[in-house]
Each structure stands twice: as C-alpha cells, then as structure tokens.
C-alpha cells in the first residue's frame, strides 16, 4: 500500500502544480495578436498620403518582427570579420566565391534571382535515389517553374549535380570543390561536421521574418552581390509595407493555419515568419498561442478560439473535407461558412519557403484573408 500512496502523492503534487499553472495562465490571458491600435488608417492616410515608407510602417506593432531588422546590422564580409549562421556558428569566407553547393531551396532561389546561378555546382534534390520516381531528375524546387526547368535541364546535361540534402555525405560534396555550402536545418547536417575547417558551411534555419530577410542579405554578401541583395531586400520590405498598409485598418478575422496533422495538430507558432505574414495580411493568427511550429496546439483551444478562416498549408493527411468531418469542429465559423483553404504546392512554396518570393506568399495570404483587397 505504501508504494501506491507514493504514486498517488506524486500525481497529486504534479496535478496541483499544473492546476496552479493553469490558474496563472487564465489570469494572464493567452497571447493575442497585437492589433495596430496606435494608428487608424485615416491618421496614416492624412499624415503620409499615399505610399507609406518602410521607416514609418516599422514603428507599428505588427512590424516588430521586421522593424528590428536593419541591413547595416548584419555582420560578415569576405576576407574580413566572421559571418554568423542561424545555428550561431562563426563561419569565415577568405576569398571570392566561385563554386557554390546549395542544399537550401530558399538560397537556390536567391542565387538565381541574383543572376549568379552559373556559380552553382550542386543543388538539393530530395527526390534523388527514389526507386519509385518515374523521373530520376527532379529538383527540390518545384516552383518557380522556370528555375525548376532550368535546374532539371542542367542536371540532365551534366552541368549541375543533384544531391540529396538529407543523406549526402561529405565526400560527395568535397568532390565538387565548392568554395561555400548553403545548408538548411535546425540541427547541423552530418556532412557539415565533417567539412569543418575544410569548406565553409552556412546553415540557415530562419524563424522570424527578420531572420528570413537577414539570411538573404548574408547570402548576397557571401556570393559577392551585396548591393544587389540589399536592393532586393529593400524591395521586399517595401512590398511588405504596401500590403500591410492595405490591411492596417481593416477588420482582423481570426485565422488558424494548420501545418501537419498526425498525432497532434501543428501550427505557425508565436513570432514565426508564417505568423508575421498572416498578421501583415490582416489576420489574427491564433497560432501565436504556441511557442513554435514544433509545438502541438490543443484542439480545445482551436475550437474555443472560433477561427473564421482555416488554411491547410502543409497537411499531407488532411483536406477541407476531413477537417469538416472532425468531431467537435462544427461550431467553428470557418467550418460552417466553408472557409477552409487547401494551399496548392505553388502557394505552399510561396508562403513557407523563406526565400525572395516572400511578398508573393504574403499576396496569396492577402487573397485568402482579405480577398476584397487583392487585385
């Protein structure tokens, strides 16, 4: 009996702790999307008339993820001080970059946009080694189609190597004699460990919108196209500002963006760039209640929040029909009003890929959240 008493005691203590925490949570209210309540559209319109500049917009609350970002603050230059990648590793580049292995689709897009794709010697090809694939050459980048076609043509012609970003080894990379490797991941890929001190490897895993833009600047500096990259990022910021200025005084429908559903529902996460995009497109993102896109969100919380729009962004298991059929979801306005959007592959790449087309992604979201504002 003593053992049982102890089991119970532990459970009771744990329970008490959790209910105490719950009480605290109720008292402090869950994180709510910050609304642009400082300025009304009329105020902005009378003050700025027409085009808002980035600096003016950046003082607004919704822009905090971006306004903290300034191109001048990005560290690193070739042959000079160290660059810092998203895993907080210091990486230095000693001389001009002529050969690039790019295993990060967002960086590949950026390199094409900067017009230096001739320096690419390898790209990521997550399809390679697929015994079941009808076409052995397929790039990870499905959209934009022109880049996809270009990559596939060059791989077929033997001018470009396709590497599986998940399983490639250090030897295959070294064989290509790259000056730099661009990687993707929230943990360091195995090959990066082996390439330490031989080839600089940059690992990009942006979380916030500022991270996304900063990475584009870093890529530009590394490949020696600093001015062009800075101009592109300024243009992206202006594009974001244009759309945000449209939605600033509009109603903010509650949006729930689902990323995966199996053994738990995943969503955007607080301060993630996905969340920022939804807010900038004029929605109230209920996904800000959880800390990251790696946290399971409570189904009870979703139903309680009553989202008006549901976006199925990356849900291989789910469709609008299966979401409508979920038990307990039938009071959700998005379900009763049929406002469940299944993102296409193209939409998903635009919204989720942390590359230079992020404004296009923002426009897709604007079309979903405020269709009346998008031309």
């Amino acid at each position, binding site marked *: 009996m003593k*053992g049982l008493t102890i089991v119970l005691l*532990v459970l009771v203590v744990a329970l008490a702790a959790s209910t105490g*925490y719950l009480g605290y949570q109720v008292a402090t209210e869950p994180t709510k999307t910050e609304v642009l309540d400082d300025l009304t559209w009329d105020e902005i319109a009378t003050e700025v008339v027409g085009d808002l500049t980035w600096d003016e917009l950046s003082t607004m609350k919704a822009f905090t993820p971006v306004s903290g970002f300034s191109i001048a603050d990005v560290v690193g230059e070739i042959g000079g001080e160290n660059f810092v990648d998203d895993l907080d590793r210091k990486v230095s580049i000693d001389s001009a970059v002529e050969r690039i292995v790019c295993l990060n689709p967002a960086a590949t897009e950026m390199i094409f946009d900067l017009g230096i794709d001739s320096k690419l010697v390898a790209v990521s090809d997550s399809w390679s080694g*697929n015994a079941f694939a009808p076409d052995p050459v397929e790039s990870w980048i499905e959209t934009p189609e022109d880049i996809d076609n270009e990559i596939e043509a060059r791989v077929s012609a033997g001018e470009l190597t396709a590497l599986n970003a998940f399983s490639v080894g250090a030897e295959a990379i070294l064989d290509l004699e790259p000056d730099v490797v661009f990687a993707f991941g929230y943990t360091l890929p195995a090959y990066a460990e082996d390439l330490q001190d031989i080839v600089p490897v940059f690992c990009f895993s942006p979380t916030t919108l500022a991270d996304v833009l900063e990475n584009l600047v870093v890529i530009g500096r590394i490949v020696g196209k600093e001015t062009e990259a800075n101009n592109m990022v300024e243009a992206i910021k202006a594009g974001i500002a244009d759309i945000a200025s449209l939605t600033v005084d509009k109603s903010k429908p509650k949006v729930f963006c689902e990323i995966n559903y199996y053994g*738990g529902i995943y969503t955007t996460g607080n301060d993630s760039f996905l969340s920022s995009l939804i807010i900038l497109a004029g929605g109230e993102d209920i996904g800000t209640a959880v*800390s990251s896109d790696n*946290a399971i969100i409570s*189904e009870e919380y979703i139903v309680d929040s009553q989202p008006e729009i549901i976006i199925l962004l*990356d849900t291989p298991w789910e469709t609008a029909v299966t979401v409508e059929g979920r*038990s307990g979801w039938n009071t959700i306005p998005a379900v009763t009003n049929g406002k469940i959007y299944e993102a296409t592959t193209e939409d998903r790449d635009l919204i989720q890929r942390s590359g230079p087309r992020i404004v296009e992604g923002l426009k897709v979201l604007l079309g979903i959240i405020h269709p009346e504002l998008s031309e």
Partner: protein
Amino acid sequence: VKSRRKIASILILLSGLLFGAVLISTAIGAVHVSPLSILKMILNGLHIANFNPTWRGADEDIILQLRLPCVIGAALVGSALAVAGSLFQGLLRNPLADPYLIGTSSGALFGVTIAIIFLPTTLSMAGFGITSIVAFVGALGAVFLVYSLARIGGRTHSVTIILAGVAINFLLTAISWFLLDVVGEIQHKASSVYGFLWGQVIGVDWDQLLIIAPFLLLGLIIASLYATRLNAFSLGEEGAAYVGVNVERDKIAVLTLGALLTACAVSIAGLIGFVGLVIPHIVRLTFGPDNRLLIPASALAGATFLVLTHLLARTIISPEVLRLGILTALIGGPVFLYLLVRYRKEYAF
C-alpha cells in the same frame, strides 16, 4: 496469495481512484468550462436530464466531442497496455517483457510507413484514419510472424519468442526507416511518423471508442479469466503442465489476447512507451505477484496513470500539448525506481 475479500477491496479502491481521475480530467483542460455546466452537458448528452444550455455550442463540443472521448480513450489505452504487459511478463517469465516486445510496435510502424508511401492518406473507415487501420493490421501481422518463426514441431519456446520478437522489431523498424529515407517524395510526410512513435491520445472520437471499447473490455475480462493459469506458468512451463495446464493452447490464447489489446491501443494512440512495462511492476511491487489481483489491478492502475498523465500533458503548458510518451516515462520512471529501491529485497516476480 490473498483472499478473495482482500482482492475485492483493493479493486474497489483502485476503481474509486480511476473514477476520481476521470472526473478531474474531465473538469480540467485547455479551455475553462465550469464543472457544473460540464455535469449538465453530460446529463443532457446521456438523455438523463434536459437542462437549458447556459453555455456556448463550442463549449459543449469541447467537452463532449473533444475532451471526454480523449479521457476515456486514455483510460482504455492505459488499461490495455498495462494488462498486455502483465500478460506477457507472466507468460514469458521475463521482467523486461512489454506490450511491444513481440513485434507489435515495429509491425504498426511498418504498416504506417507502407500507408504513407502507397495509400491515399485521406482514406478512412468507420471513423478510423488509414494509419490507425494499418497500424492495427501491422501489429497483429508482426506478432503472427514472430509466433510462426518461434514455433517448431508444435511447440513454441518462450526464449525463442522473445528473440524472434526482438529481431523482427529491429528488422521491421529498419525497413520502415529505410523506405522513409529512400522514397524522397514522402520525406515531408515522414514527420508524421514521429507523432506516431511518441504516442498521443488526440482526436479520438466516439465512433472509434464504440468500436474499440467492447473489444478492449472483453479482452480485459478474458485476461482476468486466465489469471489462475498464468499463476501456474510462474512454475515454469513444465511445472505448469504438471499442475494440469494445457501449456501450448494457453500460450497461444494469451499471446493472441495480449497482441489484440496492444493493437487496439496502438490504433488509438500510436506507441506509448513505459505504461505496459512499468505499471505491472508497480502493481506487483505494491500488491504481490498473484495474477488474479495483478491483471485487474494493472488494468485499473494503467488507466488511472494514463488518464492523469494525459491530463498533465494537455494542461502543463496549455494551449500547447506535450507528447504523452515523454511524460509517461518522465513521471513513471522515478516512481518505479523509488519502489524498486524500497522493495528490492522482497520483490517476488
């Protein structure tokens, strides 16, 4: 060996604990709904009373469609795993036996992998997603494979069952991950497998429960009926045969029963570790090794444990939900270690 009276009083006490755990779990969740409203909703739902709703339709859905089925699902899964664990430990006379030992976990994983690669993922049947169905089929298939590998000349040796089970577990797990790695197209779907591996009682609905619950309850009753014969197995198989047990027949029956209980649990919750291994040990340390008490007590203790762990998983950092398999080990581990150290001299297996 305890008297019937003592067994009955312990089981009544454990039933009371389970009932209390279910009550608390139903009352607390990510969304606050007053306990009185919850009671009224449930009475309305059972057509016992007809209170005027003073709550939102959404609140009713949250309690009756989301929270309550998950609480009951957690109870069923917990009891099924704990009973399957005690059956396997008793039958194979191995303290490390757990519900997944004889191939169920890897069989289920293999099934899910095949479904991800070859089947339309939005298929469903009677409220079960395709992954639940293939997990169930895969779990049973792997156990059948292990059993037929271990069977020689009409006899199966416990050691061979365990070794074949371990080998099949490694093999099927390796094939699954190999396929997930090689078939690049599904690499972004492969993340779904992690949810399955850590186990989660989420999105359970009544249709699922209505299908699974009768199986599980029947399985639990039948398991209790085998208690006396399992006691005989503690004498060793020869000893059991000596006291009149049909060893081969009972072995097939108990293995099948344990595999069915595990497969049902897997189809609802994926792979929840620890419960099936440790709850039977905790019960054995507390109440002794008599299977007549061990099996029903494991059912009740397993259910209570998983209901309360599930409560913690969905409330500690709500509205985030923690992975259940992590919490079961995190909470159960220290408790088990304490008991082990405290009673290590007296532990009778």
